[in-house]
């Protein structure tokens, strides 16, 4: 069980400040923070499961459920909001039948709302996996979603 994370732990000396970078590396590798992961970090950093969970849950980056095969992020920053970002978010909820923070039943997509992807001049934007798409419309978004398996 511990072996799964050993490679990650090896990069760190085990100080308190390592917690967030460790969580980030685990999420990068496994897609989310499982109970199993938290239980393994605890002896390494000598802090309790609860403390780890307390820190992890403070930050919106960390997820505790398995991600989908694709991930869609809809920007809810100010520039995007003013250009209808929330309407795009509703479209995703309707099309994929998911709520923010959830994964579709068939695991095709997970859906998150984010605050600003830094491309505000080209609002509204969505990010699917690693690609940011700008000047998005409801109709183009629907077509785009169909391209992902």
């Amino acid at each position, binding site marked *: 069980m511990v072996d799964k994370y050993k490679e990650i732990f090896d990069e760190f000396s085990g100080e308190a400040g390592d917690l967030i970078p460790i969580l980030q590396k685990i999420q990068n590798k496994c897609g989310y923070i499982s109970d199993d992961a938290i239980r393994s970090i605890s002896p390494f950093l000598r802090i309790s499961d609860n403390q780890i969970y307390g820190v992890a849950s*403070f930050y919106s980056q*960390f997820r505790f459920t398995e991600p989908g095969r694709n991930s869609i992020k809809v920007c809810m920053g100010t*520039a995007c909001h003013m250009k209808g970002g929330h309407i795009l978010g509703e479209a995703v909820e309707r099309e994929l039948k998911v709520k923010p923070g959830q994964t579709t039943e068939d695991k095709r997509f997970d859906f998150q709302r984010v605050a*600003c992807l*830094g491309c*505000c001049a*080209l609002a509204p934007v969505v990010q699917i996996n690693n690609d940011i798409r700008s000047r998005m419309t409801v109709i183009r978004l629907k077509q785009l979603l169909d391209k992902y398996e």
Partner: protein
Amino acid sequence: MNKFKEISRTARKKWDQLQSSAIPIIYLGTASCGRAAGAKDVHEAIKRYLKDNKLQARIIEVGCIGPCYLEPLMDIRLPHSPRISYANVTPEKARRIIESLLINGNPQVQMALGHFGENGDKLIEGIPRFYDLPMLKSQVRIVLRNCGLIDPEDIDHYIANAGYAGFLQALEKGPEGVIAEVKDAGLRGRGGAGFPTHKKWETCRNAPGNIKYMICNADEGDPGAFMNRSLIEGDPHCVLEGLLIAAYAIGASHGYIYIRAEYPLAIVRLKKAISQMRAYGLIGKNILNSGFDFDITIKEGAGAFVCGEETALIASIEGKRGMPKSRPPFPAISGLHGKPTIINNVETLGTLPNILRNGAAWYRQYGTPGNYGTKTFSLVGKIRRSGLIEVPLGTPLRQIIFDIGGGSNKQFKAVQTGGPSGGCLSEEFLDTPVDYESLGAAGSIMGSGGLIVMDEDTCVVDVARYFLDFTQKESCGKCSPCRVGSGHLVEILDRITKGRGLPEDLIKLQTLGETIKRGSLCGLGQTAPNPVLTTLRYFRSEYLNHIKEKNCPAAVCKELIEYRVIPEKCTGCRGCVAVCPTGAITGPRSEPHNLDPTKCIKCRACYEVCRFDAIAGDAIIIRSRRRIHDDHTA
């Protein structure tokens, strides 16, 4: 020192060779904004085209030069010609331009945006100078001087353009000399509050202890602002040089860059840049034989707005929940791990090399007394020319929004400065000079540089609700005025936007807002009510419209609007029928369609089709329910 001289000489030579290159150079803007607009596809298409046609050219990926609305931007420089810029390039358009220019020598004047020629270049008739374009003309580019012009992943490009010369100056002046120069320049922190940079440096330098930390705040939490991202992506070394100078001044031997995880490209570029510095001996032990040791760790944020606040940021680096602490003690005395710590914003750091290199007097020629220098802004929202700009402090809002930004397509309504902590200013304030004090006097703040323009189609009550919803969700929960109070504000604003507001709500918003400002522990709560308080002050009638008449004049608030088909305009193309997810629109081809408001979920699909589809008649409108009602009874 001598080693660096040698490095500079080589870098300079490399740069000069590039400028007099015998083969064409294609510069492509591939910062995040360029990529979002499709620059990577363009890149692939160019590479393939060059290969298929056996054309020789060098492609250089550059950062964002500012007019993001024109992305993807591609520039081409033929031997002995100035660099010419082309906007909104698609793979097809790129192929056409390259074919025309590289094969036929025809610069396609009608497609060109501008050229970067200098005196002495053979200029091309019909193409304006890039820096004479309306968006660029009144800008002063100091911090952004290299963005879009150099290869951000090549330290030699930076060094060839006087890079690290500011740091050399700093070493010559000594730490006290650096602090004196920055004081003389009148530099104030660009992260929002405008605190004099030299003051906190002095406190930190004089604080006892030999372990001190220097932190670069690249958390850029304001949703709708991207100045720091652009700068790091376009010219990472200027921020790193600034970090070196600041660390040297305060006597820190370790530095951190705290950067949001939402900026993956910026993180990659910083990491590359740091390893290049290491290879050149600009980081590590005994830098350039000066006896100064310094190293940098990159810490990725994990998605919490409040972590932009200094004490919360420190808690986050220490591996804790990002909760602010009450001050004093200030971080300059007791910060990271209890040691004296300075936190500076990306742009503050990016300014330092320029001040050290050119001197305080030079810097003071820009801006106004007390507000010297320039400031970058991300100009977004309902504005024609959106993007990243840099202007001297003291420039009036009107000049920024209208001369540089080209105004809104529709009637201008308001501008929000300072993001969620800032205020929403109406038309009467357009002549306000953009400086810390004037914006403060108007009830807003300078903030980090987000400028969000609103037109008549923006509902200010919705905007206020949006910001409060944001800050309430980002409140760390430690103090109750912020945690509970902002929740109440959202509740009230929410019911107003739903047409269920009560007349006494306005007074409640006001008193609650003022209480939260006074009672909150950190800057987040202390400024959170600003969007409500300013909109209440300058756009009261819009609130009253929502409350008394259940009317959203901008036709934004979902519960107060309706979608309609104008029969006279409808061409009966059935475009909307095809996209309507609920079957609310019906009707045979070639006859005006019927929209059933009871089935309509206001998803906007029909509206988009009707506006963008060639055969549609622009017949679907979104209007305030109240107005539709009035039109019927009139």
